[in-house]
């Protein structure tokens, strides 16, 4: 497991990956466990939602409908909690990749070996992709098992779409943290920039449901392409996938350009 940068990253983070996976499974199990009782009171819940101030329902719950299984999973998993967890993981991993190694001081010895910066960048990025992919697959599997057990029968295709969009969203923000870290060598800065931008873009997309003036700008938010509060029911669109993937590709290119050109911090 200590052969090369990619496998070493995997070894360094294998426990973290296992814990994250376990956490996701526990989260899904809990949601699926409460579904029957939510369904029984679905009418009441929908009434409750309708009584909420309009800006909350419009902005954050969208077309929420607790009474249907996709509506429930959208609201409970995909609208907020899962993106939050994925972004925390992806931004943390992305920021740690290059900037973390540099701040720990080990980048000097690593790059004093016969490896190019390009290779180090690509191998470290490959681990970010792998990590997000693992979490996406784990979430998909857990949802598939959990929703079926709870009698929701959402269908594998619909869940796979949601998890794919979620993975691509997480990866885009992970790439942002990766690129800022590669360009500056500063992990805190990479985390702060990515986290701050994520919050801003989330709010932009959410509030654009509410304020007509903001609507034209929602295309600037990655959350728009993710499907906002309802990725499960959004359907798979080539434009969404392209924007999310292209964002990641551009940020990887930025990371490569920036890190191969600058001084390694002492």
């Amino acid at each position, binding site marked *: 497991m*200590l*052969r*090369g*940068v990619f496998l*070493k990253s995997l070894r*360094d983070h294998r426990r973290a990956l296992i814990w994250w996976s376990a956490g996701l499974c526990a989260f899904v199990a809990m949601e699926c466990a409460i579904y029957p009782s939510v369904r029984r009171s679905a009418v009441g819940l929908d009434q409750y939602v309708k009584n909420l101030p309009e800006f909350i329902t419009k902005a954050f719950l969208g077309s929420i409908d607790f009474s249907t299984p996709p509506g429930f999973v959208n609201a409970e998993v995909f609208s907020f909690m899962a993106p939050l967890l994925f972004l925390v993981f992806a931004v943390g991993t992305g920021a740690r990749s290059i900037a973390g190694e540099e701040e*720990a*001081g*080990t980048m*000097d*010895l*690593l*790059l*004093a*070996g*016969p*490896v*190019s910066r390009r290779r180090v960048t690509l191998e470290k990025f490959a681990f970010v992709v792998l990590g997000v992919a693992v979490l996406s697959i784990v979430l998909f599997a857990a949802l598939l098992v959990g929703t079926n057990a709870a009698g929701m029968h959402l269908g594998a295709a619909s869940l796979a779409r949601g998890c794919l969009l979620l993975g691509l969203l997480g990866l885009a923000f992970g790439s942002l943290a990766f690129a800022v870290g590669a360009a500056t060598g500063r992990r805190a800065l990479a985390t702060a920039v990515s986290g701050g931008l994520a919050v801003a873009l989330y709010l932009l997309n959410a509030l654009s449901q509410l304020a007509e003036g903001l609507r034209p700008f929602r295309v600037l938010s990655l959350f728009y392409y993710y499907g906002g509060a309802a990725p499960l029911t959004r359907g798979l669109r080539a434009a969404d996938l392209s924007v999310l993937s292209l964002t990641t590709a551009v940020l990887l290119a930025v990371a490569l350009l920036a890190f191969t*050109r*600058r*001084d*390694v911090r*002492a």
Partner: protein
Amino acid sequence: MPCPTVGDARAPRGEGRAVVTAVIYTEKLTKYYGRQRGVVDLDLEVPAGEVFGFLGPNGAGKTTTIRLLLDLIRPTSGSATVLGHHSRHDGVELRRRVGYVPGELALYSQLTGAENLRFFASLRGGVDWTYVDELAERLGCDLGRRVRDLSTGNKRKVAVVQAFMHRPALLILDEPTAGLDPLVQHEFYHLLGEASATGQTVFLSSHLLPEMQRACDRVAFVRDGRLLAVEDVSAVAGRAVHEVELTFAGPPPTGPIGALPGVSGLVADGERLRFRYAGPFDPLVKLVAGSTVLSLTSREPDLEDVFLTYYGDELDGHGIGEAGALALTPDGTDDAAAAAEDAERGETPGPAANAPAPNHQRGL
């Protein structure tokens, strides 16, 4: 000394500065961090098989130079060639043949020493593990413990093993003995000698003159980012100034000692004599052998003293860069000093007069 790693194209020394002959060759290598000076116009030439010392006080630009050689940082201007590979364009091949101990040492603290070595070895396509074990045993390095539980010295041992384990053509060692206890240092100098004997080249940076005298063939003096001179170590040893204190059982031979060449600042304090002494110790020892000496202490000069005795004049004047460049010719040691003196008196026309005045502080 034959060196299989550089190849047959090697021209005899003394035929000017030719990139093929040198293991390390820098040309006007300059690094500024923003406006802060790193190194300026560094012309270095290290031939194969030599243990080459890179001596200067902290902040002189030693680590900057080393990180430039390894392409960890990029020069503002000038260039560096190591083992025939341009540092900017051919860094991977360059580093394949270099072993490195960083000055600011950081290993993977959550891994053991052995795991660190396995990782770094994997980047090199594997190494001879029996040699790793041999190195670790010779240095008394416990590879089984997590690096975060190791002392500074023990971490450095792991780093030294890491630098030697692939038998590189060039060892670049940035203050490698910091934190090592004397016995391990002794073994470390042995390793350097063996490396040199098998044709490996060693570039050793330090701020300790005794270390240089112990380990090196030649020494480059750097200060304030500039190369002052390159000298044979034997020449340095003969001229270093020591603080000597002698205690006698009876009246001290103050007169004869005061008359000895190289003695200055003589202070008599009862049966004790204190003075500064430059030159080989033999005449002094022979002189005091006639009296009963209770104790003799000789403090190694610190680097500021060395620089002052060597370059006290030049440090105030012009032409340091010129002196350094001239001294790079293998037999140019005395020429350099003479040239510097000429420059100081303003008698040398031409480049020396145009050299920028060094922006330095005496620090004393």
